[in-house]
């Protein structure tokens, strides 16, 4: 490349810098060139930024700079304010005065008593005065100390302000150059100076700085502000607490209670029906796992582990089952597994069709997404309340709580899998005359299967984590054991119960993972 060509490029680059900087462009061109020509930190000083601080950031649209230095400068100002006029230990001199008055009164009384000839009584008064003098001396010492401390704080504040200003001056151009680079790719980012933004910045400063300063430097800010307004708005204006009591909350809470009661009455039949259905699933599983003789159940589980996940998992499963059996936890473990199983089964039963629907319809998914987020993020204790209100306590409500918590993954991952099926594959299937049904069963579901399996696995594990919480509303099982241990601080019982839950979880997870890995392996 010829020198003139390079020059032309450099010119174009500096013209662009000039366009970006707008006002004072020659200065910024030079500084940016310096920054761009340096590896490591470029020492480039910006006096305007150092003097005006956050306002410079607002004017130039460097809002990150604005906010950082707004806070840092405020911190420095608060220290300075505390040092200058904040009455640190403001109560100490007052206390000292009060004590002095008290001492004078006692001594007066003592003199009167001596005059009256009651020496013993006078002695005791003088003793009290003597003790009060000691306290007064301590108070005075405190007050002196505080005023010393005040000058220290003032010094620290000034030092902080100085450092902040220095860093503003040195950091401004670096930040502005970064903004310039962003602007080159996105011209919507502010370039040049914008006085409206500077005004907004100034307003923000006015809103934030004075109130905060007052809060941290004045002994009773609420009264101080009220005095500032000449008592027009009452003799106290609360800036330390939002001036609303609990009246709205109480009202709405009462209404909420009424609403729940009304719903529970109105749709009692529906809720009972749901409870009955869940109970039916739960009972079937319990018959299967508990009423069946334990050797049969154990054998079935170990054989299933062996067939689905291989010999290593089978050995681990046998060991875990032996632990449960020898600890005498076999029956409640099976109750727990039935609880998880019922929850997971219902999750899958409803989750997969919902997932298919959401995978196909973007609109439905957009509507469902916040609900799913809500189900996953809302702490379980919160929705235990309506569940108790509608479904009472016991195992079926426990299963329902489990479903709320554990259903989202299977729905999400089914939808994800459905959407992950390549359009080309679907198109090919349609080109060969597939109906919608055939498309679903021949193409979409098989291709989405790995994702669906992951979803099922997650759902099972999440149901497990609900075991203890479900026991809070009366679902029996290992969770209840842990809850009991928690209530009586029974450490040993808690540990053994926790291990039992861990083993259940690991066995279920290993078997499910094994199934998934075999499928993923194409076998």
């Amino acid at each position: 490349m010829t020198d003139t060509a390079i020059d032309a490029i450099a010119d174009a680059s500096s013209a662009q810098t000039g366009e970006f900087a707008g006002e004072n462009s020659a200065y910024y061109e030079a500084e940016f060139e310096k920054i761009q020509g340096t590896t490591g930190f470029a020492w480039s000083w910006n006096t305007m930024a150092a003097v005006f601080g956050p306002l410079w950031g607002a004017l130039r649209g460097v809002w990150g700079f604005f906010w950082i230095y707004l806070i840092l400068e405020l911190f420095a100002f608060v220290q300075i304010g505390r040092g200058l006029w904040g009455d640190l230990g403001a109560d100490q001199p007052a206390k000292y005065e009060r004590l002095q008055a008290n001492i004078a009164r006692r001594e007066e009384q003592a003199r009167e008593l001596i005059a009256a000839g009651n020496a013993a009584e006078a002695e005791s008064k003088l003793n009290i005065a003597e003790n009060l003098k000691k306290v007064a001396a301590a108070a005075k010492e405190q007050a002196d100390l505080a005023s010393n401390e005040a000058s220290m704080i003032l010094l620290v504040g000034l030092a902080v302000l100085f450092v902040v200003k220095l860093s503003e001056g040195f950091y401004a151009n670096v930040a502005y150059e970064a903004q310039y680079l962003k602007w080159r790719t996105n011209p919507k980012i502010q370039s040049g100076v914008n006085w409206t933004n500077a005004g907004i910045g100034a307003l923000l400063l006015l809103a934030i700085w004075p109130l905060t300063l007052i809060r941290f430097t004045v002994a009773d800010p609420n009264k101080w502000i009220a005095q500032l307004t000449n008592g027009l708005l009452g003799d106290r204006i609360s800036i330390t607490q939002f001036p609303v009591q609990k009246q709205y909350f109480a009202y709405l809470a009462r209404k909420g209670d009424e609403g729940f009661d009304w719903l529970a009455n109105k749709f009692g039949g529906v809720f009972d029906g749901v409870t009955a259905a869940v109970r039916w699933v739960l009972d079937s599983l319990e018959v299967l796992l508990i009423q069946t003789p334990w050797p049969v159940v154990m054998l079935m589980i170990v054989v299933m582990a062996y067939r689905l996940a291989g010999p290593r998992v089978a050995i681990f499963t046998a060991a875990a089952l032996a632990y449960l059996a020898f600890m005498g936890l076999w029956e409640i473990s099976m109750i727990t597994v039935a609880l998880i199983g019922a929850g997971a089964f219902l999750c899958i039963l409803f989750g997969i069709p919902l997932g298919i629907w959401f995978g196909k319809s973007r609109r439905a998914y957009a509507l469902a997404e916040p609900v799913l987020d809500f189900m996953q993020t809302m702490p379980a204790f919160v929705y235990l309340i309506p569940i108790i209100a509608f479904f009472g306590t016991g195992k079926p409500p426990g299963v329902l709580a489990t479903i709320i918590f554990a259903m989202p993954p299977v729905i999400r991952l089914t939808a994800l899998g459905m959407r992950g099926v390549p359009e080309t594959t679907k198109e090919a299937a349609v080109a060969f005359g597939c109906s919608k049904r055939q498309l679903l069963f021949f193409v979409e579901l098989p291709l989405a299967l790995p994702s669906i399996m992951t979803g099922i696995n997650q759902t099972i594990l999440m149901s497990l984590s609900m075991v203890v919480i479900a026991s809070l509303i009366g679902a029996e099982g290992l969770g209840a054991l842990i809850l009991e241990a928690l209530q009586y601080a029974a450490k040993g019982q808690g540990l053994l119960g926790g291990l039992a839950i861990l083993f259940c979880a690991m066995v279920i997870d290993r078997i499910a993972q094994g199934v998934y890995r075999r499928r993923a392996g194409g076998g």
Partner: protein
Amino acid sequence: MNETVNDDVIVVNGVWKIFGADVDDAMQAIEQRGLSKSQVLDEFGCVVGLADCSFRVRRGEIFCIMGLSGSGKSTLVRHLNRLIEPTAGQISVLGKDMIAMKGAELREMRARNLGMVFQHMALLPHRTVRDNVGFPLQVRGEPKSQRWDVSQRCLRMVNLHGYEDRFPHELSGGMQQRVGLARALASDPDVLLMDEPFSALDPLIRRQLQDQFMALSAELNKTTVFITHDLDEAIRIGNRIAIMKDGRIVQIGTPEDIVTKPADDYVRDFVEGISKLKLVFAHTIMEPFDSYRPGPNEDLRQSPRAHHGTDLDQLIDIAITTEQPIVINDDDGTDIGVINKSTLLAGIQGGKA
């Protein structure tokens, strides 16, 4: 006349496709005011995918549609089995009006009469090769044994027997595309739609598959619409070629037509780099026999004879065996023209004498 009409397996007439929200208004505006593509985009925010496309494909013909990406060729072929609905125009396949077809009838048509091969194969990864090939028959509800018989036969046709029980991911790209071809043949369709079937393959495999496809096509006598962005491929494979640009068909003709008589600069640009050796024939470049003056060492009586339909490639083969010019015969064996070395070289260079 009547016979030729019956012989047209595919008739596409004035097909438009407009993508966007305001399609009907945009179409109306185009019909009434004759807006251009960019005007439609400005005014209605609609993209014109296909503009007034018409062509006919005869029975047994390989009809290539060639164009660069975005020219609308893949959109056009998807109209033939109505994977995409046209905005306006008529499409008939095998004498049936495709536009009027509904639900089950359309699916039946796709499953029985229209086979399709895709650029990215679009095989089902969870099915064996055998079940992939049998897929169109499964869609039609044929029993397993029949499906397997047919897929065995089709895999043999594309030289893939022995791979029935493999999964697609165990096969190379070229083999996968042969599975795709076998799948398209499985339902024994009258029409094959091939959407850039060989584009994703490396050049050597592509050439092999082209040869294999041409052999198969000659044997099975299927009517084929073949989409490609490669003019070489179009010329190798196609009986006739349609060249598309910006959703319009710019020119339709035989490979020789396209190469020797490009309709406009766009086509001419394309044709420029194409080897004419197999596309230009003796009768185009020869000098008339009567006006030819033999040079001092030339003796036309000793010259080799060649048919007037011999292409340049073969003429070069003949020319390197002899010092004499080549004498060109007509169908009856009469000498009608002469090609000496300089005529031949000029012909290779320009395609014309």
